């Protein structure tokens, strides 16, 4: 009877470790497939530098216009 108990422990170990590894291996596989699919079909929109530059230039123009208006107002 008593030796059975340790044997049971080893059975638990076999089943448990197998399940953990099988689960994680499937998970790794799925993760790789998922990132391949996502990068292939749903790539993140590329961040363009141009619009930023444009807005910066626009901002400069606006600042220039405002300061011109202020100085005109003060003179007037």
């Amino acid at each position: 009877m008593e030796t059975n108990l340790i044997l049971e422990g080893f059975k638990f170990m076999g089943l448990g470790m197998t399940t953990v590894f099988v689960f994680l291996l499937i998970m790794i596989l799925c993760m790789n497939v998922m990132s391949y699919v996502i990068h292939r079909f749903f790539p993140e929109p590329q961040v363009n530098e141009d619009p930023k530059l444009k807005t910066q230039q626009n901002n400069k123009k606006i600042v220039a216009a405002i300061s011109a208006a202020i100085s005109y107002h003060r003179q007037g």
Partner: protein
Amino acid sequence: MKNILIKFLTLFVLFTSASLFANEHVVTVEHKVSTHKEETYQTKPFMQMIDGFLESTGIVALIHPDPNELNAKGEKMSDFHKGIGRVIMVLVTFLLFWLAIAKGFEPLLLLPIAFGGFLANIPVAGIAGENGFLGVIYQMGLSNELFPIIIFMGVGAMTDFGPLLSNPKTALLGGAAQFGIFGTLVGAVALSQAGFVDFTLQQASAISIIGGADGPTSIFIATKLAPELLGAIAVASYSYMAMVPIIQPPIMKLLTTDAERRIKMSTLRHVSRLEKLVFPILVLSLAILVLPESTPLIGAFMFGNFLKESGVVERLNDTLQNALINITTIFLGLGVGSKLAADQFLVPDTMFIMILGIIAFSVGTATGVLMAKLMNMFPGHKINPLIGSAGVSAVPMAARVSNKVGMEYDRTNMLLMHAMGPNVAGVIGSAVAAGVLISIFK
């Protein structure tokens, strides 16, 4: 203006008359209660009252325990557990206070647990009993395994799977470290076979889950399989998790060569938002297909993570990460503390649980490191074996330890983010291992 004044006055008159009526009502009720009391209360001489009071003090209760006093489960206790045992347990909780405050050992949980233990060992008051407030807290959320699940949601909301997604194969390290759980299970069974203790297979499994180095999982399994050992298991689990920076480095250094400790890992690639959003659903779906028994834990964990990664429910995410997890931690700690009553904690089993717990941690650390060395034998990017130890969960402490040990040998070697991969995989791994144990005893 006049109109408003009139309205105000009418309201005032109404209100005062209403409260007068209410007062009269209360007076009549009180009167009834007091007459009722007079009927049952028997007058006693003053000396007898003093005697009775002295009989009910804590000092008397500790020195001459009431022979009819029952423990939280309604069973009789030995005089040792009622008297000196309680004093010892109070000293044990003081030791836990010291560890939490002076040494910074997981104070967020150890302090509520220790104070709960302090309260649970008060004679006469029966705070941990069925009707005491600790007993009520225990019934409310621990005996039905609710609190650990809520904690898991909060942990999920705090977890970033980015490092794991950018280097998926490190998940295997988190799997290898679960060997600590099953190795300890065999150890616990062997101990009881050798005749030192008498652990059933359920108890042995509940103890071995300490090796998962994950507090909520340990508590979840312990309440399910062996609630009588909950106090010892939770204390062992949290105190060893706090001691990870002491336990792990010697084992890591013993098992690795100097060259291995200096391995630099390639930088992690960028992980897109969509990947992070799909991941929780992916893992949960796998858990549903492979091991539904593990879905309470994994489901709660992934729920929290999904809310966080969705990016549209910042308020819920914030509540999960802060308010909810804090409130639950207080109740969980007190509820676990109620199991530190002398009659449940001061038993030989506790000592063996402490020993088995540290073995579980060490074995898990060692197998994680060895797995990394094994993976390095295959072609591909090399892994620094120091991150293998982070495969025992203990997020994020174990990952920090990997980083610290790595920096000791090469100041420029940042392993923290690399170690977070196996670290969070370890949480998934121990939840799966827990699911296996539950499914066996179903």
